[in-house]
Every structure is written in structure tokens, then in C-alpha cells.
């Protein structure tokens, strides 16, 4: 019965993935992509990877959906969607299939890596959650660089702004009917989401959660508040916004440099202070991740939409 369940889930995931790439309509592909993220989250949960399932649910089914739908609406208004459609692309299909086959071959052909015993090393990190321990200690380099990549992506988006718009608020001027359903929702959901997101960060030390998952939930509710017109969009020049964007990578980097100054390796946290230090880095990273993701989705500063 367990096998039947897994097969059904895999079949659904494959169908949805196909639905996202073979259809011609952009909107339909977007909707299939949203359900794809959702089913992947179920798949990860089925495998027992709670933290990955959480990240996939928050990013795949939450933020990516709103990002793609907003982009689709924008394309439609610029009437780009009526552009002649490209036909099937055999080149892309062949490349995709080749990469998939190569990865599948690698999975079976390569020897399983012999990792050091994580359970034995975990007490050094002071973390109860092995995922958080690995992310912030054993592969701290990757995590640091990922947080900087997010910042770089935001700078890339901001560069799309016209010079004259630079001091305008970020994104569109969102508005909603006062007292309407959307405005009420924008006031009701954020307190719940803020509590839940903060809980995820706190629980990430020893249980399911983490800075990335918590930060994504926080970003999502901040986004809802902005789209409901409850929270005014920030401006690039605001000191608070800039500080929030860099506090995560900054604190992480400084802690690594401090370790060097104290004669240890870069990004090494001594076991004695590992837990409090990790928590401080996690909180700083959460702030940066939440703000960066939210303003990434909102878009570059824009005084008014380009008229076509």
C-alpha cells in the first residue's frame, strides 16, 4: 500500500511537471508550476525531509507563484503575450533529457560518498536540528555565499530601474478597497504569519524550521500586507531597508572574520559559544532573507508603468 502511494505521488508529480512544460498557454504553465511546487513539498514530506518540505512549500507553492502571476499580469499589460509563439524546441528538449539521463546515471554509477558521522559531530554545533547544524557549521561557506547571492540578485533587479525612478517607492502603487476583503485579509494574516515565521526560526535550532524557511514565511506575509495596501512599499534610499538587507551576510561574515582574528579558521565557531552564536547569525540571516525576498518580488523602483 505504501508503494502504491509513492507511485501515485510520483505519477502526479511527473504529470504536473509535463503540464507545466508542454502546454502553450503561459498562464496554464504558471498554474501547473505552482501545483508542482506543492506536490514536491508533499514528496519531500513523504521522504521525511521536513525542512526541505517546508522550504519547498514556502518558496515553490508560495512566493514563486505570486512572482510568476505578477510577471504574467505585467506581460499581458505590455501585450507581449500576443507575440508569435515559439514552436517546439527539439534542442532544449534533447538537452533536458540528456541532463536528466546523465544525472540518473551519476546517481547509480558513482560510489556513495563517505561522509563523516554527522550524529557524532552534531554536539559540536550546539544544534539539535542536523540540517541547521550542517548549514551553519559544516558548510558555512555555502550558506554565506548563498545569502550574498540573494543580495546580488536583488541588486540585479534594481539595476533594471530607470535613473529617474531611483527615488520612487519600490514596485507598483498597490491599493485596495478600504474595509474590503483584501484589505481585511492584509491586516489579519500578517500577525499570524509573523508569529509563525518567527517560531520557525526559533524552532529551527532543535526541530523543524530554520532561517530560510522562517524568512520566506515572513517575506510572504510582508508581501501580502504590501499588496493589500496596508504597508507602504519602501524606497531604495531608506537606511532601514539597506541595513536589513545586509545585516545577515554582514553578521555572518564578521563572525567568520572574528574567528580568524582569534586564531581559528574562517567561519569556525568554537563549541563553547556555538549555540548562541548560531542563533544570532540565524536571526540576522532571517531578517535579510525576509526583506530581500519580499522586495525581490515587489520589483524595482518604478514611478509609473512604461506606456506602450
Amino acid at each position, binding site marked *: 500500500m505504501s508503494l502504491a502511494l509513492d507511485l501515485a505521488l510520483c505519477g502526479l508529480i511527473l504529470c504536473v511537471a509535463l503540464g507545466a512544460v508542454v502546454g*502553450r*498557454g*503561459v*498562464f*496554464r504553465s504558471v498554474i501547473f508550476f505552482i501545483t508542482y511546487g506543492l506536490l514536491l513539498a508533499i514528496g519531500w514530506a513523504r521522504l521525511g525531509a521536513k525542512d526541505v518540505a517546508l522550504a519547498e512549500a514556502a518558496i515553490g507553492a508560495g512566493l514563486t507563484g505570486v512572482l510568476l502571476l505578477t510577471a504574467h499580469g505585467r506581460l*499581458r499589460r505590455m501585450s507581449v*503575450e500576443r507575440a508569435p509563439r515559439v514552436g517546439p524546441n527539439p534542442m532544449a528538449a534533447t538537452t533536458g533529457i540528456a541532463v536528466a539521463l546523465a544525472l540518473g546515471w551519476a546517481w547509480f554509477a558513482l560510489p556513495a560518498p563517505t561522509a563523516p558521522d554527522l550524529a557524532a559531530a552534531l554536539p559540536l554545533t550546539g544544534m539539535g536540528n542536523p540540517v541547521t547544524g550542517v548549514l551553519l557549521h559544516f558548510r558555512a561557506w555555502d550558506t554565506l555565499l548563498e545569502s550574498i547571492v540573494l543580495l546580488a540578485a536583488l541588486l540585479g533587479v534594481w539595476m533594471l530601474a530607470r535613473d529617474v525612478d531611483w527615488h520612487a517607492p519600490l514596485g507598483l502603487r498597490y491599493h485596495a478597497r478600504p474595509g474590503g*476583503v*483584501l484589505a481585511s*485579509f492584509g491586516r*489579519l*494574516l500578517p500577525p*499570524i504569519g509573523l508569529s509563525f515565521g518567527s517560531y520557525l526560526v526559533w524552532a529551527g535550532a532543535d526541530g523543524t524550521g530554520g532561517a530560510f524557511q522562517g524568512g520566506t514565511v515572513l517575506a510572504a506575509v510582508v508581501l501580502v500586507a504590501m499588496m493589500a495596501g496596508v504597508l507602504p512599499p519602501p524606497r531604495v534610499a531608506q537606511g532601514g531597508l539597506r541595513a536589513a538587507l545586509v545585516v545577515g551576510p554582514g553578521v555572518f561574515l564578521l563572525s567568520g572574520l572574528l574567528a580568524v582574528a582569534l586564531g581559528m579558521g574562517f567561519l569556525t565557531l568554537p563549541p563553547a559559544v556555538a549555540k548562541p552564536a548560531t542563533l544570532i547569525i540565524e536571526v540576522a540571516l532571517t531578517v535579510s532573507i525576509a526583506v530581500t525576498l519580499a522586495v525581490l518580488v515587489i520589483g524595482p523602483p518604478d514611478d509609473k508603468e512604461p506606456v506602450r
Partner: protein
Amino acid sequence: MVTDLATYALTGLGLVFFWAGTIGLIRFPDTFSRLHALTKADNLGLGFIALGLAFQADGWATLAMLALIWMLALLAAGTVAQLVARAALSPPEEDEE
């Protein structure tokens, strides 16, 4: 066990409501009937399933989580149904294809 029986009955009922919602979504003739079929039926289904699972819960925290999940799903569904229905009343120029 009585608790197991309650789980069988309530989750089974929940599944029936989910199927009812899906059948409505597939069979009903226009956007607005479909909207009303699914937002009502599937959230009732989720409620029955959460209630049925609550009989298997291992503590108060789990019960509270199940209740919170259902309430948030209701909040989202109510909001979305209203907003999408209003958006569908005056659709933008045209749909694709």
C-alpha cells in the same frame, strides 16, 4: 477502539466532501458554479479530516495545530473565493488560447 472508529468515520466523510468538490469542479457548467462547489466542499472535507485525525493526536499541541490549520485554510478559502469571483465578474480583455 472508539477513537479509531471516529477517525474512520470522520476522515471518510472528509474524503467524500473532497470528491464532491472535485466532481463539482469538473462537472459544473460555468465558472461561478464551479467556484462555489469547490470552496465550500473541500474546506468542509479538510475540516472533517482534521477532526478525524485529531482522535489520533499525541497531545494538545497537535490538536491545536490541526485546529489552526483548518482555520487558516478557511480564512484563505473565503478570501480567495470572494476575490476570484469578483475578478471573474469583470475579466480583463480576454483569456489566452
